């Protein structure tokens, strides 16, 4: 079992435990999370709408100002506006999170499909591969990728994606196997439907919808891992405002300027929580819609 499998199980469980009381309105937590994610989307697509000044404009004379009306989140060591940088960093951070998740998902899908449909030999082989990949803990695998390909945001993204792949692969395989042996697939076989049609009409749609929910949950964790790589000096490049890199840079001034780390940190934590809550809400809707 992995982080992802664990998340999947909790999502399914939380969806089960919430009695369908015919709720028409989303819960307050979901609305809040939705609002937060909406802000993230705006900050990603049109950051200039959300920021109050140029995130890369330096003003060393204004360095280390604590949060104020002019600078909501204070200023950093180069006098840049932390709020604007947090906004500007949203795109990069989400890009890293989303791309890493997509890489993990795509790899997991290939492995999972191979394991489920390419026969016993493949199933055995892929399962061993997954097991071997699991033997490398996430950061270790990421470090190994970085040893080979050198540090940087692209490598970090690939590394994080790669390290989540075995988790996705196992879930996807499990999902395919359970759907393939489900009664409704059997019912389709009884009706004389071809394997391709069964795969396209039943198995893929039913496996991929929960997977997309799972992916929303993976994004937050991917950002956290990418930020750890940034802390170790193996992540995003300046002056790109990326939350992990801001956090890593700001940690130096933790004692004297805590706002440098507090706000990017809150964004990472907030994004993870918000995507998780939304993922759960999605899962609930999926469950209720059935």
């Amino acid at each position, binding site marked *: 079992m992995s982080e992802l499998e664990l998340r999947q199980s909790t999502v399914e469980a939380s969806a089960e435990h919430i009695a369908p009381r015919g709720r028409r309105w989303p819960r307050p937590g979901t609305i809040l999370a939705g609002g937060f994610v909406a802000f993230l989307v705006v900050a990603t697509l049109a950051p200039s709408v959300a920021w109050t000044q140029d995130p890369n404009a330096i003003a*060393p*004379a204004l*360095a280390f100002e604590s949060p104020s009306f002019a600078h909501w989140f204070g200023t950093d*060591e*180069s*006098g840049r506006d932390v709020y604007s940088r947090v906004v500007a960093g949203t795109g990069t951070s989400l890009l890293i999170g989303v791309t890493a998740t997509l890489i993990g998902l795509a790899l997991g899908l290939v492995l999972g499909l191979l394991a489920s449909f390419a026969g016993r030999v493949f199933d055995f082989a892929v399962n061993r591969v997954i097991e071997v990949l699991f033997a490398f803990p996430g950061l270790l695998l990421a470090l190994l990728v970085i040893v080979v390909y050198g540090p940087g945001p692209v490598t970090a993204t690939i590394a994080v994606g790669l390290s989540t792949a075995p988790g996705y692969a196992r879930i996807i395989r499990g999902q395919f196997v359970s759907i393939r042996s489900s009664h409704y697939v059997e019912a389709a076989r009884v009706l004389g439907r071809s394997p391709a049609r069964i795969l396209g009409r039943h198995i893929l749609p039913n496996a991929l919808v929960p997977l997309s929910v799972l992916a929303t949950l993976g994004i937050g964790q991917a950002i956290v891992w990418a930020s750890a790589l940034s802390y170790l*000096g193996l992540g995003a490049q*300046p002056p790109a405002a990326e939350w992990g890199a801001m956090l890593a840079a700001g940690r130096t001034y*933790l004692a*004297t300027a805590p706002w440098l780390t507090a706000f990017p940190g809150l964004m990472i934590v907030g994004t993870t929580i918000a995507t998780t809550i939304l993922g759960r809400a999605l899962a609930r809707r999926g469950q209720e819609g059935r």
Partner: protein
Amino acid sequence: MPAASVTSSSFGRRSLVLAVALVATLALAGCQAPESGASDEPVQGGTLVYASGDAEPVCLDPHVGGNYPQALLASQFLESLVSRDESGEIIPWLAESWTASDDGLVWDFTLREGVVFTDGTPLDAEAVKVNVEHLQDPATQSSTGYLALGKVAEVEVVDERQARFVLSSPDSALLESLSQPWTAIQSPAGIARGMEANCEAPVGTGPFVVEDWVKQDHVSLVRNDDYSSPPADAAHDGPAYLEAIEWRFVPDAASRHAALQGGQVDVIDNPQPDTVAAVEGDDAFTWINAPRPGAANRIELNSGQAPFDDVRVREAFIRAVEVDEGIEALYFGTASRSYSALSSVEPLAYSDPSRFETDLEAANSLLDAAGWTERDADGTRLKGGQRLTLRFPVSTNQSIPAEQSLFEQVQATAKAAGFDVVIELLDLSSWYGALFANEYEIVSAPYTKVGPDVLRILYHSDSITPAPSGYFANLSQLDDPEVDALLTEAAATSDATARAELYEAAQQRILGGFYLLPLYDQQNSFLLDSAVKGARALPTVSTPTFYDAWLAD
């Protein structure tokens, strides 16, 4: 402790910074003077805990490789033939005197009498010979020491206390080279144990002995009770006051500082400028500011290829970049702007602020003149469709966060003139990789060496040719026969005045060509719990020494 409190209360304002360095220096010197009052009487015993933010050495023998972290530790248990005092004068240490032949090719060193290595081997001329051979043996894998002794052809044993260095060509930097920890003298018996054992615990004549090295954690050093060879500028004779030193490796700056505040450690190195400023006026802590000798921290402009093969573009860059405010904000007044290729502790450093005045208009017209007239949507200048992009590889292992922030400011200010600076944060190996591949326009690399001869290593055209491993030190790829001639001549000139003139001429020419942008001295400072008395930095490569140190209650 008066000296300490003066030091710690006098920085914080830019105008006072220069004074601070002086006061700190005086404060260190002051420790030598006998002091009144019972509490100033040195106390015997105790263990000092030192927390180092520098990388943990992979080998404790500074002959192997030869980097600064090794020098930091080696200064506690190894000693060199000579040392240097505050004014930059060479003073006796393991060698009590020396003479040079008129042609500068033969140097005779007379060793101090009665000095014994901590394994019982006596210090004699044979030991000096073995050390030089060890440094020059490829199997030792020496880099820094090997380079420093590049002109030493052989060492002859004249008698037990007389070692004769025979040079292949005159070397005015020989004494400075021999004062460095990377050429320190080790026990021949210790060297004979082989690299693995010698890396674990080198044997020297120093005031402390390596007892144990727990990898990734600490090195235990214990007092050498038979110690008898302090350098000429030491405050006392005989064994050290401290019983032991626990030398810990604490890579995280915030943790290191918190540990000092919490009393878990007594001394930290590489303190963050903001934390130094934060303990300002706090009697509980003492700040030792000891910039490294050799080169100043600077940004080198790669003149070997476009666009910096054009002096106008180089000047435009230097005119465009504004770093003064940044240095003040980021270093909280703990570092002062440098206008020289050499460290401010080098007596022969030549400084010329006029060449580094920021002038955006001048930068723009220079670039226009050089043909970089168009601009794209980002505001980056273009010439024949080529963008004015400057690749800037930065080693995360060699630069502190404040420095990286400063580079970001360089990036931001250069943008105004139309430069697109691309900072690439790289680990050390990848960083070297980028340099070898010539994939850089600007770069900042530290280089520590005692004496102005460092200029020859950094700016002589010979240093453009890479070693088989790909290494080359002349990162600005400065290729000027006149500079070459000046530096070669200076290295062979033993007359002090003539040598100083030659070095000044060379520096003028180097600065005048806009090959580099000096920033500040190589930052090297220590925060001490004020219970630690008598600690100082050796004026050679500014490594700390705890021979005179003691722990007040």
